[in-house]
């Protein structure tokens, strides 16, 4: 026992001596640079599980475990972005986590606040190197002071195009899917044309409707708000306008309907979009991760082999899901490296197989 303690002290001393630290630093950089040479997943998701078990195993406080977890996150983000991952999504807090003790929830919230505030102090640095932060989840469940810090950090980093960090804050995937369905239903249940008097102009109503439908098909997700906001006079949509039509009104796609079309257009019953035009893409674009590349790799630590309501919609098709036994605070490049290399290996094998099949087909 004493011997092992002694040994570990020597280990520590050696490991913390400057040349060794420098050497490891260089080695890390080298490996990261080397990994860049192969295919790199565009979108990686992490379930940061095991902070509390780590704390329990090491006899430290739960909150300290979460703090170490945050450090681990910082390390792994560095690795991810340096290797060229575009989007990282992390499961920071589940809606179910509100069931935990108030002490822990509060500590987690204040940690999020402090870290985001610290982040906001480095505006110039973030501009040069930073990723843009997005918070996915139920904002209504977050306390106003934390929300303020979130908004500040999000606004500050919004201009960074290099990479994205999605933080799922009070999030569950079912909630996300439900919201996406609700949003879709909302947009489809708003009349796209108000009733007007039948006219004798040389335009055919059906033709215009068709034309509009076509326009919509091409641009379903982005320009929905425009439709609603350009129609503030129509009776049923006046209420929801304010919530739906934020921020996107300046986009150029709003030519689908302009005021001059209004008069030619009509019928007595309100015209709706055809629900048959709803596709899986419509829903995908209404998910919180809209616009992100498909999820390539999902990693869950601490040996739990469940998704626990995370990224269900995003990960159930081609995503490689990896369950690791190490706890999140221990997770580092050295755990990530084999996963990444195996992913690259599988990717290469898949590619070869496809190519082989293609050649087969030609023969």
């Amino acid at each position, binding site marked *: 026992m004493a011997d092992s303690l002694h040994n570990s002290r020597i280990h520590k001393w050696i490991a913390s001596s400057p040349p060794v*630290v420098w050497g490891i630093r260089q080695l890390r950089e080298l490996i990261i640079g080397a990994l860049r*040479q192969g295919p790199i997943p565009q979108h990686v998701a992490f379930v940061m599980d095991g902070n509390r078990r780590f704390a329990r195993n090491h006899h430290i406080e739960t909150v300290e475990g979460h703090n170490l977890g945050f450090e681990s996150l910082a390390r792994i983000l560095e690795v991810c972005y340096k290797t060229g991952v575009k989007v990282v999504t992390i499961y920071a807090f589940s809606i179910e986590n509100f069931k935990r003790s108030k002490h822990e929830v509060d500590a987690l919230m204040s940690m999020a606040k402090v870290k985001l505030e610290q982040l906001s102090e480095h505006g110039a640095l973030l501009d040069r190197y930073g990723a843009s932060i997005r918070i996915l989840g139920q904002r209504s469940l977050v306390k106003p002071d934390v929300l303020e810090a979130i908004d500040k950090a999000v606004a500050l980093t919004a201009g960074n195009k290099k990479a994205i960090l999605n933080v799922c804050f009070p999030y569950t995937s079912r909630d996300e899917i*439900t919201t996406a369905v609700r949003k879709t239903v909302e947009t489809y249940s708003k009349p796209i044309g108000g009733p007007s008097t039948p006219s004798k102009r040389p335009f055919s109503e059906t033709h215009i409707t068709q034309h509009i439908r076509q326009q919509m098909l091409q641009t379903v997700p982005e320009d929905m708000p425009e439709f609603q906001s350009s129609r503030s006079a129509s009776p049923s949509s006046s209420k929801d306008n304010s919530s739906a039509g934020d921020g996107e009104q300046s986009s150029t796609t709003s030519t689908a309907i302009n005021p001059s079309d209004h008069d030619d257009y009509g019928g007595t019953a309100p015209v709706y979009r055809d629900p048959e035009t709803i596709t899986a893409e419509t829903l995908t674009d209404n998910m919180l991760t809209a616009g992100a590349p498909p999820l390539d790799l999902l990693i869950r630590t601490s040996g739990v082999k469940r998704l626990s309501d995370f990224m269900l919609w995003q990960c159930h*098709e081609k995503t490689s*899901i990896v369950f690791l036994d190490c706890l999140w605070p221990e997770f580092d490049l050295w755990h990530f490296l084999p996963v990444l290399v195996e992913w690259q290996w599988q990717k290469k094998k898949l590619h070869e197989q496809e190519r082989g099949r293609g050649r087969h087909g030609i023969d």
Partner: protein
Amino acid sequence: MASTGISPREAAVLRRGKLDGKPLSAEEREKLLKPYLPEDLPPSTSPSRGASPTRRPKNRRASTSRRRRPGLIRHGLHVLIYAIISFLFSVFFRFRHAFRHVRNKIVALLKYHHRTPEFIQRDTRHLERLPKHLSVILQFYEGDEDQGSAGLEGLVNDVGEIAAWTAAAGIPFLSVYERTGKLKNYIQQTHTSISSTLEAYFGPRRTPTLSVRAPHLQSYSPPPTPDPQDDTSPTSNGHPSPKTSPKPPRQHLTVLLLSAEDGRDTLVDLTKTLSEMAQNGALQPEQIDAKLIDSELCEAVSGEPDLLVLFQPSVCLKGYPPWQLRLTEIFHLPDNKGVNYQVFLRALHAYAKMEMRLGR
């Protein structure tokens, strides 16, 4: 923390947010972070703020000529190391694959069910808990290069075997996911095949009653052949232990066939229906919540499986219905390919051991 390449002093400073007892200011932290930031800025970055854009291009031009050579060497080094890493891991993966393959074969030899439900019961009896709803993902192999499980016949055989193990372990509900949905077109044949496999396992006296269904399709469960000494109550109360009672009630097994269209497409269909209802004024969008969707999907497709067993070398869900996957325990045996009993058994063991925290 030795492997991070961050010296303990820096780590402590960053962790506590204090430098020599004083709180760390933003500039000091930036100075500390500097060595860890990437050196080379890709040309695409467009600084949106600050006065740097005027200065930076000049700096870069001056330094490129000096930097190019080391950059080239560094690049070459990276390529080399990448090749080395790929090679080493590729060797490692192959060895691991071989090792696991051999080990799995040995375990498969030791733990064989001999097509006897008693053996399976012996293997699963001591488990503390069993899933009520077991789900498996199977794959339809086009060609016949994969040993024995190719084509529709192989698939149906696999389903039959798994159904027999499930019934023997006392699990009342099995859902089988196969992406293309080939099985759904042959529900009747599948039923016949599974029944004959069950009979081969259990013998004609104790064969569990079976119903096979698929979402949106009629359930197929022909009336059981009249059995005078059996009261044919299709209960699902677990193990029919033959020792305790001479006339055990017949066990019932439900097999549900799923395919890719029960996943996203069903959710899309639900959205379409809800949109139509909203357009007709039968529903307000605010009324849509997780409970509504859950109950609809539960009825249309299935509930949440407790345990999902993959018979593939790695975890890839291939379009399995997403909504139902929420808390499902996912089991796969690394580098295993194809259906076999030990995967099934190990999955049950893993399930019995795991703990459910539900976010707490």
